[in-house]
Structure formats: structure tokens, C-alpha cells
């Protein structure tokens, strides 16, 4: 095996095979076999990914060209994979976390009928395949294929329980909102083609500085709009909370760990373009920050365990975009990684809880689960600490790096970011406290059935908890340890181009220390406040005032409904009934009607009386004479 990278096509191939086997054999294969195929293929991919990662660490990056995909005129878009630091890192995250979640799923989904069990794993494998395409593609088009593919899988998995129309609506919403973003993404691609004649990253990035300012801004903004769709940012974020309709492992994998970070991957990948377009960067930073705050406020008042986590995801994604917006690409990617660990952990933990109390998701009917589910409790707590940014858990390092970067660009970003971090700590520990502390508030029957989850569930939890705890050490800031940021060093070649252009001023150590302490203190305040407020007496009464506003998610869904959905439906109805029927078609039929009417009138000339006929003839003769003699020059 002289060059494992050339075999990179194996990585997406395994999940594809798994998809085909499970998809076609879902009726005939036993569950055990389906599980083995589902998990095994991902494991195989993971192993290959690890090998590739090793190779890449040696500095070996390659483009693997498979076949010509679309080529016309002078433009050639090959089906090719790019293996470099960034993609190999993502490969690891995807296959690694993916594998754990597959394992988890075998237990979580065990109650499903075989056929649907098989379908579930087929979808999941297809998702991994698409996600791998997304990160592996050596050009924007392959990325787009994966981009849409993961959207499709997300749609399929959100609507997995397709008998429930609410879930189907959520699935549709997710797909359509993604499509809006995808459209922008696609137009950006066309723009790139028409300006640069290629979609391959290397070509585009090399020629990027030949683009005019306006072109750069348009392209980057359009790409960013695509990212807002996929990564749930303002204004296209509302699908993500609804997407919690899917099975919890799906939420963990797709809507927390991997798919939603595709936007970050894409922007990190195109970092040069963004660095060249500071206007867009500002937009991204502002939107990211706004999303982070908005989602955090909503999360404060949610009672559905998964909804809280979903808004927290949106909020965290906002932080990542803030990082991208301020040029802290490494930080953003770092946060993607850590977030993948702890958010997957949290979701899986939530899933474990839901599994234990039979599909109850409202935290008001939980409480005191600490006793019954120790492993879940501990791991969930670790996850909460990580996301809250308590050192030395992983979230602390990555979030801190982003906030540092934000401060270096604009202290206001930092300030708002810290407020968001406060809220994050608060709502996470509100969630933790209401769920695990206090007394159980559900029915006695539920209480009777409460138990710790099986090993297939707890083992992934433990693994992820470990990762969530230690994951941050991949990027220890220079403040603590010179050269401790091994991730930054690893990714440096990817962002080298941007670093050259960027005119960032490094913060002094003192400032860094101060900022660090501020954020830690704020996080602790949030944790403690939430603990005090909710550990004993969770709030069960309905909210009012601002609380109600938050509970109803700022009424954003309703506003969208009133401003976009309803008008377009009404417009469709008007067009379909009024314009189409009594407008266009009426005119078309009107031609026919007027001919019939004319027929009825003209035939009256044929009065049946010879005298009239001859009179008319003589009149015509007169006219002809006049025409021929008097109206000719």
C-alpha cells in the first residue's frame, strides 16, 4: 500500500455499499445483519480515514481524479477528490462520530420494524456518503453534490416517521429552506464559472485575486447565503429546531455534529475568497453573532429537551460563523470539531433519556434522573461543562479562540459573544438541572420503567464524553503552551493563503489573560445561576411577557408564515383560479367565443330574401367602383 490516498474513493464507497445493501435488503435481512452492515461500512471508512489522516500529517496532500463529470466548451469539471488537511480532519470527524452514532442507533432504533430499521440505516449510510462527498470534492460542484445530498438525507431522516404529518412538514421545511440556500450557492458557482472558467479549488483560489471587488463580494455573499441555509443561520435557521422531529441519533449526527457544519467547512475551504472580501466577512460576523444571541435567547425558554439542544446548536454555529467572519478560520474549524464531540454527546445523552422514559421530551416531566441513569448523567454533565466553556473542557479552548479572534477585530463582537456565552452556560445548566436533578415529575409508571440504557448506547456516550473532555487539547493556546496548538499547525497550509493577506494584529498576553478570565467567570456565573434557579424547583408555570416571546421563538416562524408562505400560497391560488382561469384562459377561449358570436351575427346577413341579397351585391359593386375609380391616385 504505497499510497493510501489514492484509495480515498473507498471512503465514500463503503457507506454507499452499505446504503445499497440495507436499502435493497431492508425487507429480507435480519436486524443484526443490517446493524453490522450499517456500522461495519462506516467503521471500514473510518479505518481508511485514519490511515489517510496519517498520510496527510506527513504533509502529503493529493487530488484524486476519478472521471470527467461535466465538460463542455473549455470548461472541465472532473469528478475528483481533494485530500488535504482540512478534508482529512473532517473525514475523521464524520466517520468517527458517524460510527459511534451508528452503533448507538442499533440500540436506539431497535424497536422499529425490520423494514424501517433497514431503511433507517440505509438513509444514515447515504448521509455519510453524501457528507463525505461534500468534504472530499476537489471542486465546488462535487461539494454541491454532497451539499444537496446531505440535504436530501436530512429530509428523509427528519421525515423518517412518515406517518406523522407534522414530521413530514418539518422535513419539507428543512429541505425547502436548504434549497433556498442551495440556489444561492449554485448561482455563486455559475458566477465563478463565468468569471474564472473553473470550479476546481486550486484554480479558483489561485485566480481569486484577479476577480473584481464586486465579483468577490457577490460570490462570497451568495456562498454565504448557501451556508446560512445549510448551517441554520439567520434568516434560514428555523428549520433546524423543527428538524428535531427525526430520531435523536439523527439529530446528533446530522443536525449537530456534521451536516450543519458544512457551511463552516465551505467557508473555511474558500477562506481566500473571504479574506479578499472583507465586506462579506463583516456580514458573516454580524450574522453569526446575531444568530448566536438570538438562538441563545430562545433556548433559555424551551422545554423540549431536543429543542434546547437544537437552539444551542444554532447558537454555537453562530459562534463558528463569527470565527469565520473575523478570520479565525482555525478557531472555527476547531470549534466544529469540539462541537461535534460535545453536541453529539449531548444529543445522544438526551436520546438516552428519551429512550428511557419512552419518548417524553418535555423536561418539565423529567427530573431526578441522576439516580436512574448514572452513566448518562455523568456524560451529559461533561458535555454541558464542555459547551459552557468551563476549562479545561474542549469547548473552552475552541470558543475562546473564536472570542479572542473576535476581540482582535472588534471588541463589541467579543462583548456580545460573551453575553451569549453567559446564556449558553445558563440554559445548558437549566436543562441539566431540570432533567437530572430534583425529583422525577413524570407518571409513576414511567418512573417504574426508568433504567440505564444498554451498552450500545452508553459506550458511545462514554467515548464521546472522553473526546469532549480532551478534544480541546488539540488546540491549546500559545498562552498556555507554546506550540500547543497542534491543530492550528496541522491546518496551517490550508489557511496559509489567507494568513498572508490578513492584516491582523496579535493581542498581547495581558489582554488575552483578561479576556480569558472574563469569559470563564461569565460562564461560571451562568452555570451557578442556573443551578441555583433550577436544581430544586424547575419552572413549570407558563411564561409571560418576554418569556412568552422567547418561548414562542420570537414568533419568527409566524412572521415567515405571514410574510412569505401565506402570500405565496395566496398568490398561487389567485394565479391558479383568477389569472389562469378568468385571465389567460379566458382570453384564449374568448377568441373562440367571439368567433362563435361573430358567426351568429354574420349569418344574419343571409336573410333568405333575394332582394336583400341583390341590394347587398349592388352596394358592394358601388364600393368596388368607388375603390377602383375614386380612391386610387
Amino acid at each position, binding site marked *: 500500500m504505497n499510497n493510501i490516498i489514492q484509495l480515498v474513493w473507498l471512503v465514500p464507497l463503503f457507506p454507499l455499499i452499505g446504503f445499497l445493501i440495507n436499502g435493497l435488503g431492508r425487507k429480507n435481512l435480519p436486524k443484526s445483519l443490517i446493524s453490522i452492515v450499517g456500522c461495519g461500512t462506516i467503521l471500514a471508512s473510518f479505518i481508511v480515514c485514519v490511515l489517510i489522516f496519517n498520510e496527510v500529517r506527513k504533509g502529503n496532500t493529493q487530488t484524486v481524479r476519478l472521471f470527467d463529470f461535466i465538460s463542455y466548451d473549455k470548461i472541465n469539471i472532473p469528478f475528483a477528490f481533494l485530500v488535504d488537511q482540512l478534508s482529512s480532519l473532517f473525514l475523521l470527524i464524520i466517520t468517527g462520530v458517524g460510527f459511534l452514532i451508528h452503533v448507538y442507533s442499533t440500540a436506539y432504533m431497535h424497536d422499529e420494524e425490520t423494514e424501517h430499521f433497514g431503511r433507517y440505516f440505509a438513509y444514515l449510510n447515504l448521509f455519510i456518503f453524501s457528507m463525505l462527498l461534500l468534504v472530499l470534492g476537489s471542486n465546488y460542484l462535487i461539494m454541491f453534490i454532497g451539499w444537496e445530498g446531505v440535504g436530501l438525507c436530512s429530509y428523509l431522516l427528519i421525515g423518517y416517521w412518515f406517518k406523522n404529518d407534522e414530521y413530514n412538514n418539518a422535513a419539507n421545511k428543512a429541505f425547502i429552506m436548504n434549497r433556498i440556500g442551495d440556489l444561492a450557492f449554485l448561482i455563486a458557482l455559475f458566477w465563478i464559472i463565468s468569471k474564472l472558467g473553473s470550479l476546481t479549488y486550486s484554480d479558483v483560489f489561485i485566480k481569486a485575486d484577479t476577480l473584481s471587488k464586486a465579483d468577490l463580494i457577490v460570490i462570497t455573499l451568495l456562498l454565504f447565503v448557501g451556508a446560512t441555509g445549510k448551517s441554520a443561520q439567520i434568516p434560514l435557521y428555523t428549520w433546524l429546531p423543527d428538524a428535531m422531529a427525526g430520531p435523536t441519533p439523527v439529530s446528533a449526527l446530522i443536525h449537530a455534529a456534521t451536516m450543519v457544519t458544512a457551511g463552516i467547512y465551505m467557508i473555511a475551504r474558500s477562506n481566500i475568497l473571504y479574506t479578499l472580501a472583507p465586506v462579506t466577512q463583516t456580514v458573516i460576523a454580524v450574522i453569526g453573532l446575531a444568530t448566536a444571541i438570538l438562538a441563545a435567547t430562545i433556548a433559555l425558554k424551551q422545554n423540549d429537551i431536543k429543542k434546547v439542544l437544537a437552539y444551542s446548536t444554532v447558537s454555537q454555529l453562530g459562534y463558528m460563523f463569527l470565527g469565520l467572519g473575523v478570520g479565525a478560520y482555525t478557531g472555527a474549524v476547531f470549534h466544529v470539531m469540539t462541537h461535534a464531540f460535545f453536541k453529539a454527546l449531548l444529543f445522544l445523552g438526551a436520546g438516552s433519556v428519551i429512550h428511557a422514559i419512552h419518548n417524553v421530551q418535555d423536561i418539565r416531566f423529567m427530573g431526578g434522573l441522576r439516580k436512574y441513569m448514572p452513566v448518562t448523567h455523568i456524560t451529559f454533565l461533561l458535555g454541558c461543562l464542555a459547551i459552557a466553556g468551563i476549562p479545561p473542557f474542549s469547548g473552552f479552548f475552541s470558543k475562546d479562540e473564536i472570542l479572542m479572534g473576535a476581540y482582535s477585530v472588534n471588541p463589541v463582537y467579543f462583548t456580545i459573544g460573551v453575553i451569549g456565552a453567559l446564556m449558553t452556560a445558563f440554559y445548558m445548566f437549566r436543562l441539566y438541572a431540570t432533567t437530572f436533578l430534583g425529583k422525577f415529575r413524570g407518571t409513576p409508571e414511567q418512573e417504574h420503567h426508568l433504567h440505564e440504557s444498554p451498552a450500545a448506547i452508553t459506550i458511545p456516550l462514554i467515548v464521546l464524553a472522553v473526546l469532549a473532555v480532551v478534544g480541546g487539547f488539540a488546540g491549546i493556546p500559545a498562552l498556555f503552551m507554546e506550540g500547543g496548538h497542534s491543530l492550528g499547525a496541522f491546518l496551517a497550509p490550508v489557511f496559509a493563503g489567507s494568513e498572508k493577506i490578513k492584516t491582523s494584529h496579535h493581542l498581547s498576553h495581558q489582554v488575552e489573560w483578561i479576556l480569558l478570565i472574563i469569559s470563564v467567570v461569565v460562564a461560571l456565573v451562568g452555570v451557578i445561576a442556573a443551578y441555583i434557579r433550577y436544581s430544586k424547583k424547575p419552572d413549570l408555570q407558563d411564561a409571560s411577557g418576554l418569556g412568552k416571546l422567547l418561548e414562542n421563538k420570537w414568533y419568527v416562524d409566524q412572521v415567515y408564515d405571514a410574510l412569505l408562505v401565506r402570500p405565496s400560497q395566496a398568490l398561487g391560488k389567485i394565479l391558479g383560479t383568477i389569472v389562469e382561469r378568468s385571465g389567460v384562459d379566458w382570453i384564449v377561449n374568448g377568441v373562440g367565443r367571439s*368567433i362563435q358570436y361573430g*358567426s351568429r351575427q354574420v349569418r344574419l346577413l*343571409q336573410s333568405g330574401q333575394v332582394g336583400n*341579397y341583390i341590394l347587398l*351585391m349592388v352596394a358592394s359593386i358601388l364600393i368596388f367602383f368607388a375603390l377602383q375609380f375614386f380612391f386610387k391616385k
Partner: protein
Amino acid sequence: MNAIILSAVLGVVMMFSGIFLKSGNAVRIIAISGLIILLGSNLAELYGFPFFNVNTRNMLVFNSFALVFNTIAFVSTLVYFLLSGRDIMHVGANGSDYFALLFFVLCGVSIASSYNTLLMLFLGIEIISIPLYILTGSDKKNLKSNEASLKYFLMGAFSTGLMLMGIALIYGARGTFSLEGMSIASTPGLNPLLIAGLLLLIISMSFKVSAAPFHFWTPDVYDGAPTVFTSFMATIVKVAGFIAFLRLFDGAYGQMGAQWQLLIAIITAATLFIGNITAVFQQSVKRMLAYSSIAQAGFMFFALFGFNDLAKEGLLLYSAAYSLSTIGIFAILIKMKDYTFEGFNGLAKHQPLLAGTNAIFLLSLAGIPLTAGFTAKFYMLASAIKNGTHFWLVIFAVFCAAISVYYYFRVIQAMYFKDGEEQSISVTSGFKWGLVFIAVAVVVLGIFPQWLFTKLYF
């Protein structure tokens, strides 16, 4: 000359056959065989074997155009005799006389296709018209037939008056009746006598070919006349009128075509409009066909409007296409009990062959490709477009053609898409073969129209 003499003689023969033969079938067979002889002799002349050598003093000129047209007319008549011969005998007691009159009309048709002086035109038109007045009224007990006959006669005579006045004025201007003499090239400068005369001549010829606004007699006469004779009038006679008209243009108007173009364009447009739009509302298929014949006349008028080589070929093709299709439709219509559109309901189920051939004829009249009707319309449009002026007329004609689809397809819809009670239609196998023959001819002419013209260029 063969055709003129033989048809006159055959007319006389038919007159006497009624006296000597009591069986209607025998009369019919004589008529058919006589027509075959007539056709044969005409073909003989076409191929260069004139039987009679008469010095016509340049009053009749038998060029290939005339002879080809005669052939078309005779073939159409032959088909007509074959399909509707029995029905001719059923109109009244004087079967043989009807045949005699039809032969006299054919004599007039042959004159009208080959005249070279206005005198022969006048005689030809009258020889066509007078038997038709009679045939229209031949269903004597039927008031509709009477009415039609009277209307036809009065208006026909009126138009004869116009024509004679026109001829007199032309004579005043030119001092001769021959077409060459009328040609403007021989003496330069137009004078009002000539223009007025030609105008009156155009008007009276328009009357004969039922062009609007001189078409008023057509629907009533076609509707009132016994259906068999309507078939003959609407096809062979009308087409002969156009051939005569075209010859007139050839001789008299050719060099000053532009002078008349606007007028012809107006007549064409009016004819297309009146014919098509009025046909839309008709309830009786027979009356619809009358209006359709006006509409078709509008298209044939394009030959006069365009007036180039395409127009002449096209008019021949049009006569063949239009005559054959219309004869076929009428032959089927005669067999129907009910002349309304509803009468055709469900015909396809009970009489698939009749319905099928009828559909082909209707498609041909509507000008759908693969039928002769399309190629004919194509030639007409092409000649007008080649002419290059008054382009609006072409577009207008196209819309009118689309309207025509409406009423032709109503019959097809009734036959194929609607259910109706079974009618007892008794047809002989000969009748069916005749229909099939016409249908094949219509389709073949639709795909290889040049077969008709090969004789024109020998």
C-alpha cells in the same frame, strides 16, 4: 375539342336513352361508360390525338392546362357518377334527363377551360348555368328546391346582366372580344371604359365562383338543391368557374395585375371571413358544406391574387383536392338520414369505412398535411407569399384555416367521439371501393402532388 363535342353528343345520347331504356340502371351504366369515353378522348387529346380537327378561329385554345383541368373535372365527375349515380336517378322521374343536363354542364366546363374570347366565356358560363338552374329545381315537390332554383335563377340572370354590361364596355374600349386583344400590352394607357368593364366582369365571375360579397346565393342554393346536385355544383362547376377566372386573368388582367391586387385581396379576405365564420354556427352539415365551399373559394382566390406559375399549378391541385374530397363527403352525406351534425354521431362504430374515408376527406378540406388539401393550400399560400404584397392576407387566411378546422372537425368528433344510434345505411361494395379510391387519391396527391403536373410540362 374532343371533350366539347363528345360531351354535347353524350348529352343528346342521354336524352334519348331515357326514351328507349326503361331501366334506370342501364341509363346509369350508359352515362358512366359515356363518361369514360369522354375521359379517354380527353386524355387522347392531352397526349396529342385530337379526334376532330375544327378551326375554331382562335376562339378556343386547348392547351395542356385546359386539358389537364378537363381530366380532373372528368375524373371527378366519374367518381361522382360512380358514387352518387343511383341517387341521381332517385331525385325525380327524369333520371336520364339529369344525366343529359350534367353532360351539357360538362360541355360548358370544357368551354370555360379553353375559351379564348369573351363570347365563348359567356356561352360557356351560360351553358353551365342554365342546366344548373334546372337541376337545382329538379326536386319539384320540394319547396326548398323550388326556392333555391328561383333564387339561383334570378341572381344568376342578374349577374349575367352585369357580365354583359362589362363585356360591352370592354368591347367599347378594345373593339374585340378576344383575350389577346384585351391584353393591355397591345395598347398602352388604361381608359375608364376598360376598367369599368373589367370590374363588372370580375364581379360577375366572383358571383359564379361564389366569392364574397357576391356569395349570397350559394348557401341557399346549395342547401335547397337536391344533395346530389349540390355535390356537383359545389365541386366541378365551382372549380371550372375558377379555371375560367384564371384564364381571364391570364389574358386580360395579367399585365396590370397590380391594378387589381387590392380589390382581389379584399374579395379574398371577405370570402374567407364570411365563409369560415358563418360555417361555424351551422347545424346542418349540408349547409355547413355550402359555407365551407365559400371558404374554400376564398383559398382558391389566392390563385388570382398570387397569379404566378405556382398559382396555376396550385389551382389545378386545389381543384382536384377540393373536388374529390367534397364529392366524397357529399356521397356519404346523401346516405345519411339526418343532415345535422348529430346525424353523424357514432358513425365510426357502425360504418367504420364510411367514417374513415369521410375523416380523410374532412382532414383534406381542413388542410391537414398528408392530404391533398394541404398541398393545395400550401401552393396557394406559397403563390401569395411569392407575390410579396398584402402579406396580411396570408396571415388572415391562416387564421381562417384554423377556424375551418372547427367546423370540419365537428363532423369528425361526431363520428368518432360520440355515440349514436345505429342507422340503417345500405351501401354497395362498389360505393365503398369508390370511397376508398378517392381517399387513396387524396392521400397520394397529398404526398406526391407533382404527379398531377407531369403532363403540364411535356
